[in-house]
């Protein structure tokens, strides 16, 4: 490339423009190098896909055999007594749904604030920055934080602490998608509503939310998918419970924490249950992700 940049008079005598053979050799070398790089990139992509396939295959291979009706109908029991995962599944559902229910309205309002009230204000930029940091902050720290404010002062691990920890993880996810989706709405739509006399809050609720509904719902689904598999924050908050319990003030079982406890155990039936749980949670999370993607597709 650089030969075209220099002044014509200083072109070397054997440069590509003069010597056909050198030109051919250079061009062959460049093309050959290009092909090698492309092959390496294809290899990288194949490795990525093989890793995904390996994870899914391992889950199916170890999980399907361990799956049975007893997984859904019986609670966790001591090793050797044919327990299931019922309390863990129900505990996970309760905490995931409650966490989403607490976190979504907050995230929605923050997203609204960033898009409709504070597009370029200093406070708005600070909130956006902090929310982005929270989005990627290690979830184990959220668990430690909730431990210090809800578990230590109240003298015990509780389901409600688990819900709050998950809610804190939900907030930045919903903030991000809500803001992005509200920003896509054309200003003319808002102006039209204001022109017929609608106050701002009704414009936001009746026009903007409705127009961005698909996107916001996608964000909520992704948030559910993310927190459903969270383990670390629950270790310090809801702790896990080997007995059937729906009380939010008591330690509460959850699928990821049960998997964590069972997978490292020395009992074959517990390890099998861990694989069954892992299969359930992974395919649930992946299904939610795929549904979210399909929902968003027609508009984008």
């Amino acid at each position, binding site marked *: 490339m650089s030969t075209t940049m220099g002044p014509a008079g200083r072109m070397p005598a054997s440069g590509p423009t003069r010597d056909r053979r050198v030109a051919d050799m250079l061009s062959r070398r460049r093309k050959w190098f290009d092909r090698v790089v492309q092959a390496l990139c294809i290899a*990288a992509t194949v490795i990525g896909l093989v890793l995904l396939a390996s994870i899914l295959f391992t889950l199916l291979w170890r999980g399907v055999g361990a799956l049975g009706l007893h997984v859904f109908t019986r609670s966790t029991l001591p090793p050797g007594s044919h327990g299931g995962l019922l309390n863990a599944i129900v505990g996970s559902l309760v905490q995931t749904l409650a966490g989403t229910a607490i976190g979504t309205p907050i995230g929605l309002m923050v997203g609204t604030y960033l898009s409709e009230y504070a597009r370029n204000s200093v406070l708005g930029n600070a909130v956006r920055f902090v929310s982005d940091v929270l989005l990627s902050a290690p979830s184990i720290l959220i668990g430690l934080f909730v431990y210090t404010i809800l578990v230590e002062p109240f003298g015990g691990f509780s389901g409600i602490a688990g819900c709050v920890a998950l809610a804190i993880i939900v907030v930045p996810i919903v903030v991000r998608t809500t803001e992005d989706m509200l920003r896509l709405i054309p200003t003319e739509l808002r102006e039209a509503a204001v022109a017929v006399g609608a106050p701002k809050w009704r414009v936001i609720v009746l026009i903007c939310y409705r127009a961005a509904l698909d996107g916001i719902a996608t964000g909520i689904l992704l948030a559910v998918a993310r927190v459903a598999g969270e383990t670390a924050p629950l270790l310090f908050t809801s702790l896990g419970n080997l007995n059937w319990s729906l009380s939010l003030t008591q330690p509460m079982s959850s699928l*990821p924490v049960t998997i964590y406890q069972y997978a490292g155990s020395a009992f074959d039936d517990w390890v099998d249950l861990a694989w069954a749980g892992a299969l359930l949670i992974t395919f649930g999370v992946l299904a939610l992700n795929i549904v979210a993607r399909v929902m968003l597709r027609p508009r984008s």
Partner: protein
Amino acid sequence: MSDATLPLRPAGSRAASVGDRFFALAATSAGVLVLVLLSAIILSLFVEGLPSFRAFGLNFLIDTDWDPVQEVFGAGVPIFGTVVTAVLALLLAVPLAFGIAFYLTEIAPAWFRRPVGTAIELLAAVPSIIYGMWGFFVIVPIMGDDVQPFLTDWLGDVPWIGFLFQGAPFGTGILTAALVLAVMIIPFIAATMRDVFNTVPPVFKESAYGLGCTTWEVMRSIVVPYTRASVVGGIMLGLGRALGETMAVTFVIGNTNRIPTSLFGPGNTIASIVALEFPESHTGSLKLSSLLALGFILFVISFIVLAISRLLLRPRSA
């Protein structure tokens, strides 16, 4: 028409303005709540870790003892393990992620990009506990039976670096943890890189192709220089993930509080020691305070990394 009773403002405007004020207040307080939340996380971890910082001073950061019986705690080994595994994971993940992003933006046929891109993104959605189990039951045996003996044979006697590849091939250890972490952060880095590569105006690339550039030359001379800051931002995002990852690492790192001399040696990270030691710590004990102090250190490290990443990826709100 000029009837005196015609209101200047539409009917119900007072209710509307009350509603407006209320809604604006709710939105603003939600925004402020996010700021309060982050401050509260930092403050609570710092305050709870304070007894430990007081007892051990700055030595806490470098001391390698972790002895619950003698009540002596130091963060040296976990900090070392956290940084080493995360950096090793980056070294493994970045080339692969770059290749995937390059393939998805320039090489793959257009109809093939979406399904492959989605598959890579799904890899990012798999919960970390699943990576832990997969690492423990699939990767650890492969590492112990094949990879580690192979590396010892080939590199164990090389001067200067040979010691890194010696030691008993248990399968677990620093290298395995870095490998599993790399698999976990590849999709994040690849997806970010793909998105920023796609922001390059097509006319730049077409001009280069028009001059006779190969695909690789377009990538190296046009796309990468144009997106350099965002690419580094994406890598930092991956680093942030790797630093704080808990479950996957806990399964495969071997969990020993000793600075390993070999890549095959067991170690620990801040997140793994917190997850493992926490259940055995009493409320108010120096050990619990030390664990929360570790949490504070992890928060500071990841905050810096994530802040840099965000600043480099900034154009989102432009």
